[in-house]
């Protein structure tokens, strides 16, 4: 495979996702630079998870294009999936497999050679402190341990792009620390790009090089923390303050935005969808 010289590892053009009359993601445009931790923040129901799921191939867009590493996901999904890892917020994995079997299975799905798979499995089991549990059935693991297994599985094929939805859910403080360190190492030393969605603003502030704030299915602000401060009209303040300022809206503004997302039928079905 030839190395591509590209400016953005992920490119979204006029991306749209509709669930019936409801527009979850509305003509979104986004460029994610390679080798960075890119955060996607937003209130509940803003469209973050839907966007991430479309990037990973879990959901099909209604319209628009997604390009990963210069390749259109609609044209060659097998390639784009082979260079993308995903960590969902809830670690649903095959309970009846052992951790070792699960990782070997993932290696097989990504066509990894036995030698490479073995060395990566050893490395990741040690990194996530799972070596002693390698032969235990995943069903007997705690939520945090399952989350670590999912992390190991996503990193096993050494993806160019790692998409992470709420990485800290279920992890203990040690796990938090491990993940933050890991994100830095992966981007700085291995050149991986991490696309991260989180509600934990301290984590975003600490690890993200660039942030996009999404509201009502659209990107409302983008940049590093300083640029976000400027766009919110503040000279200083934490990410939390900036976030609240950017996403604040009056009841009328909110009602109008919700009505627009439902195709203009104001407040007709405010709770009839479940995705973010």
């Amino acid at each position, binding site marked *: 495979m030839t190395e591509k010289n590209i400016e953005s590892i992920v490119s979204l053009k006029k991306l749209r996702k509709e669930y*019936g009359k409801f527009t979850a993601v509305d003509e979104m445009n986004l460029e994610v630079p390679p080798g960075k931790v890119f955060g996607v923040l937003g209130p509940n129901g803003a469209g973050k998870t839907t966007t991430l*799921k479309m990037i*990973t*191939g*879990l*959901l*099909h867009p209604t319209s628009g294009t997604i390009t990963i590493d210069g390749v259109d996901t609609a044209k060659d*999904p*097998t*390639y784009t*999936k*082979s260079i*993308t890892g*995903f960590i*969902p917020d*809830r670690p*649903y*994995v*095959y309970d*009846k*497999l*052992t951790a*070792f*079997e699960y990782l*070997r*299975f*993932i290696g*097989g*799905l*990504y*066509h*990894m*050679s*036995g*030698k490479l*798979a*073995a*060395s990566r*499995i*050893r490395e990741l*089991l040690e990194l996530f402190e799972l*070596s002693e549990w*390698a*032969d235990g*059935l995943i*069903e*007997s693991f705690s939520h945090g341990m399952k989350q670590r297994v999912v992390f190991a*599985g996503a990193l096993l094929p050494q993806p160019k792009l790692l998409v992470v939805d709420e990485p800290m859910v279920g992890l203990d403080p040690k796990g938090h620390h491990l993940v933050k360190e890991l994100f830095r190492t992966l981007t700085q030393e291995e050149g991986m790009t991490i696309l991260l969605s989180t509600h934990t603003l301290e984590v975003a502030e600490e690890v993200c090089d660039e942030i996009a704030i999404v509201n009502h299915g659209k990107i409302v602000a983008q940049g590093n923390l300083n640029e976000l401060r400027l766009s919110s009209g503040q000279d200083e303040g934490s990410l939390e303050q900036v976030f609240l300022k950017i996403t604040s809206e009056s009841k009328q503004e909110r009602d109008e935005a919700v009505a627009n997302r439902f195709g203009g039928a104001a407040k007709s079905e405010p709770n009839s969808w479940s995705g973010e």
Partner: protein
Amino acid sequence: MVWRLLFVKLQALRGSFRSGQGGRHRIPAFLVLSAFFWYQLFYWSRWLASQALLIEPVGELLIQKLISITFLVFLGLLSFSNIVTTFSTFYLADELEFLTVQPIPKDKLFTARFLEALGQSSWVLFVFGVPIFFGIGNAVHAPWFYYLSLIGILFPFVAIPTAVAAMLSLGLTNILAADRAKNAFVVLGIASFAILFIVIRAMRPEQLLNPDSFESVGEMISLLSAPTSIWLPNDWCVKIVTPLMWNDLKPNYNAMGLLFLTPLSLYIIAVWLHRPYYSRGYSKAQEGRHGMSAVTQVSDWMLKRKTTRQASLDNRLKVLSEETKVVSNLRQLIRKDRAIFVRDPSQWSQLLIVIAILVIYLVNYKYFEIAADERLFGDAGLYFFNLVACGFVVVALGGRFLFPAVSLEGRSFWLIMQAPVTLRSFLFGKLLGGILPTVIVGQLLIWASNLLVYQNMVLCLIASFIVLIISIGTGGMAVGIGAIYPQFHNANSAKIASSFGAVIYMILGMLVILVMIVFTFRLTLNLGQAADGESYKISMKYLFFGIGGVLVPLIAGYVFMLTGVSSLRKRF
């Protein structure tokens, strides 16, 4: 309160229709197929009843027996489906975690779950049993109150197995040592096996096929008028509806009392038993795999034996690193499914059902051969009857093993969707991984049954080939339709195998078999004649029909697999 609890389920059901996740055509397709099947059942029941009426002097008794057998078969089906449904409804359903912490009085929670289990496990009787009874009624020109009373007796009839199953599940979850609740399915599987076997043998249907096998008319009348068992509710139902069918308005108070008071008493006893024991049973059902029942010990031992054979993680990694060939992702999917199947005790009960089907089939087939003899079927008739019946068994096995395959990915399906595996490979992996039991059982059945009646070798080989094609074709249909109607939220394979989609698969699978047998009928017959040394002539027309017949299940299987792929794609 009970109404509220049920209403929220109805709202959820309406929501699932509205969500459109299963495609816009899901409901209309189901309605059209059901209407078609409904009409077929009505038409053929009416035909059978009209034929039976012509047999003097036992026509009316034969019709009574037909109604009794239909009730008995449904009682057997209800017994099994209730065991599966009550167990999930009372102990495994996701919403129980929410409901059990709410201030809901125990009796009301029990009643709501009871009614839900009753509805879920009994709809089949209302959809597919009613046309049979209506068809029979239509043939004998039954008055309007026959139809009305029929609807009236079905409700207490279906409530009996639900109440029994609720108490059985309660007993099992309380008696078994702290263990995974699903292990109980092994016990329930054995119970279902016993129930099915007793029910089918009690019917002795082979004797009805050949009235000449009775030594005298008196003996025949005596057998036909004898109740199946006065302790079974099917007998009570027959005693209530058959007099009405013949315009006899004198009610049978004894049967009515038994039919209406039994479910009421069972319900009251079940409520009374659930008060002290339900929360204990529910709690035990939630315990993880920390229990030490025999099943858990065996599965733990198997896992340990497998993992320690290669001594340590180091050794296993060494073995993996020495694998020079990259294993295809199709093979990985099959390996994964195999490991999961072996470790899930709830799946083992499925194997007991397979053994039950094999034994019941062969025992009954031998009876058919003796009873039917030359007069009704003849050798050729018996041969084709065997082919169709074997095909139906293969379809049923496909429904058990292959139809739930996609749904059983459950909440882990995201892994497949985001992995570099095409949905087509994924579905073919499911087919290849799960088709072997269906093929083996199909071949075992067809060879054993044909050899049992000393069928000639050429016909044995043709039958084996036809059953193989049926296994592959309907296997593809099972996986494909399973992907069109997936139930990712349902972890119980037995429940998935009795869902709406599974019924559609069963109907379509049976239709495909009938089409195939009709198309290949003449060619098979001619080849059989040739093997017997008789004169024969194979025309090009029959040859083309034969080839077409072989292609029908294969094309159906392939088309449904592709439809399954596109349906899964549209779903997300």
